[in-house]
């Protein structure tokens, strides 16, 4: 789970990483009150889980409480790359004289943690990595040792951070690692890590991604849905592994790899998939009904492709699930053509069950490629 900037900064503060003083506001009036309390120039920042806030006008300086209220009014409700702004962070304005970059993340290639650090922070780090790769230090971190004082000092020196702030930077890196290890984070990023005119070093921005697999051993902040697709929220509530896409062929399958592959085959057949939905190995009637229910409520969907390979679960059980699911859905189940491809264990028995049920919406195609072509044809004909 990605955290909002203010949530990331709360974690930073808890682990001793200095951040600007501030608080989060959901209304312009709250923003005004926070600015009044902070007494001085503030900055009002949209709390959305995406980059490019500054360019979109989601970050505004304000000399005082009245200006902070106006800024919050302008920013709240703003759509930034599809994310609707529901809250703003109001914090003391700190003018950086120098900007650095620091991050810890999981490096898949090396099978280790990676530290990244640069004396040239501020800009997009992907950009820096391309324009001046030498300026971005990458150091693998031993998972068993972590980032102790010595490792942090090595990173700070090698990255070329100025020696007069090295001590502060080392403490900050050690603190950021404690966030990483202590909170089961997979990404902790500070950009910029700023030095101010009065010689302080602090995290002006913060990005933290937490490992949901470790939620059981932490108290996590509530995951505030924001501008989320309604279908995605609905699917999530039913425990479905669903991602909304922009096409017209609804896709259900078992296994993430097979579903991803099904999306590709639909695209090759000349249509666009409306979603990703993995119902997993079991493919019970209830899960099938929930999945079909979500897909058939998508107004973009013109046809549905159910692509199941019977591995552990035999196809006759899957077919029983489809029949029961369609019975549960009633009329909704008959609104769009449903192309079903069953293959693998007991495929013939499964196909026979669907033939006998003779549901008006269901048609069977024995191969994955053929089924995708049929679903694409039906979707395009209905468009």
């Amino acid at each position, binding site marked *: 789970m990605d955290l909002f900037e203010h949530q990331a900064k709360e974690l930073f503060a808890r682990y001793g990483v200095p951040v600007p003083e501030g608080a989060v506001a959901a209304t312009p009036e709250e923003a005004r009150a926070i600015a009044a309390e902070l007494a001085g120039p503030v900055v009002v920042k949209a709390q959305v889980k995406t980059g490019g806030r500054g360019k979109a006008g989601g970050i505004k300086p304000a000399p005082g409480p009245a200006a902070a209220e106006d800024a919050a009014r302008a920013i709240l409700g703003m759509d930034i790359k599809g994310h609707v702004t529901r809250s703003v962070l109001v914090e003391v304005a700190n003018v950086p004289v120098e900007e650095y970059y620091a991050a810890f993340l999981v490096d898949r*290639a090396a*099978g280790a943690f990676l530290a990244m650090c640069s004396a040239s922070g501020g800009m997009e780090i992907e950009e820096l990595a391309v324009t001046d790769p030498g300026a971005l230090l990458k150091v693998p971190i*031993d998972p*068993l040792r972590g980032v102790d004082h010595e490792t942090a000092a090595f990173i700070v020196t090698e990255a070329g951070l100025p020696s007069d702030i090295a001590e502060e930077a080392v403490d900050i890196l050690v603190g950021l690692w404690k966030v990483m290890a202590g909170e089961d984070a997979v990404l902790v990023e500070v950009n910029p890590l700023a030095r101010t005119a009065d010689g302080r070093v602090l995290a002006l921005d913060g990005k933290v991604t937490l490992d949901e697999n470790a939620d059981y051993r932490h108290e996590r902040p509530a995951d505030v849905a924001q501008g989320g697709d309604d279908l995605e929220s609905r699917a999530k509530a039913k425990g479905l592994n669903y991602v909304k896409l922009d096409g017209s062929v609804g896709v259900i399958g078992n296994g993430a*790899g*097979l579903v*991803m592959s099904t999306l590709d085959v639909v695209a090759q057949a000349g249509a666009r998939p409306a979603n990703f939905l993995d119902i997993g190995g079991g493919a019970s009637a209830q899960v099938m009904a929930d999945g079909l229910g979500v897909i058939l409520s998508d107004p973009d969907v013109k046809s549905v492709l159910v692509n199941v390979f019977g*591995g552990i679960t035999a196809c006759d059980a899957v077919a029983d699930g489809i029949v029961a699911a369609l019975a549960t859905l009633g009329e909704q189940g008959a609104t769009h053509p449903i192309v079903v491809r069953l293959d*693998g264990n007991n495929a013939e028995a499964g196909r026979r069950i669907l033939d006998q049920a003779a549901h008006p919406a269901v048609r069977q195609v024995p191969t994955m490629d053929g089924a995708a072509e049929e679903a694409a044809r039906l979707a395009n004909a209905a468009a």
Partner: protein
Amino acid sequence: MSIFLNKDSRVVVQGMTGSEGGRHTARMIAAGTNVVAGVTPGKGGLVHQGIPVFSSVAEAMDTTHADVSVVFVPPRFTKGAVLEAVDAGIGLCVVITEGVPVHDSLEFLSLAKESATRIVGPNCPGLITPGASNAGIIPADITAPGRIGLVSKSGTLTYQLMYELRDIGFSTAVGIGGDPVIGTTHIDCLQAFQDDPDTDAIVMIGEIGGDAEERAAAYIEKHVTKPVVAYVAGFTAPEGKTMGHAGAIISGSAGTAQAKKEALEKVGVSVGRTPSETARLMRALLEAA
């Protein structure tokens, strides 16, 4: 012959007395696997499904000479279970469990690197040497023994290809798992298949995210002389969305299916557009040989 697993493998199941562990132990035995022991802390002395249960992997190995462990314990106990198997010096530890915290995986993988233990997984379907032994949850009855080696991040795509090529059959199929951090990699399997006299050709299945396929392509160019056919899933996946597998996410420009396909084709690997086409490519290749 085969890689990593054969008819002489002696398998211990960690978490055998749990529901998943029990169910899949029965399936493994039905597939001909020599399951010699189960391990559940505190349940040593029990006999479950006719198999003796021990309280630790070390005891199970002492008594039964088990050399492969398959881990079915819940995520919160997985790190402990794997470290126990590593400490006991088992040769192969197959971690089926889905949902292991990545900090835990990095810790046990890091410790295993210094040890005698090969880890497959976590979050994987395991591996099968058809007709000889099955360590994990890959369905044994959809395919047959043969001379193709298969390595894949995805479970169901593995099954799909094994089924389509069941008449030719497989030496070993390895599901390495879809997590961001895993033990045995595509390259490890490619190397083992290259060295296995009973493998004539290799199918490699990849998916979006990371750069494992690109690195595999570089490895193939230098070290693999056997024919390789590949399939990559996720051409239509949008940036920034996780597609089911925790590892299957495109961030920035890295990790796209197109980039992986190009890297593989550049080193002479035929890449199928669909699973079926991939199977056809393999068939044509073997018939031409």
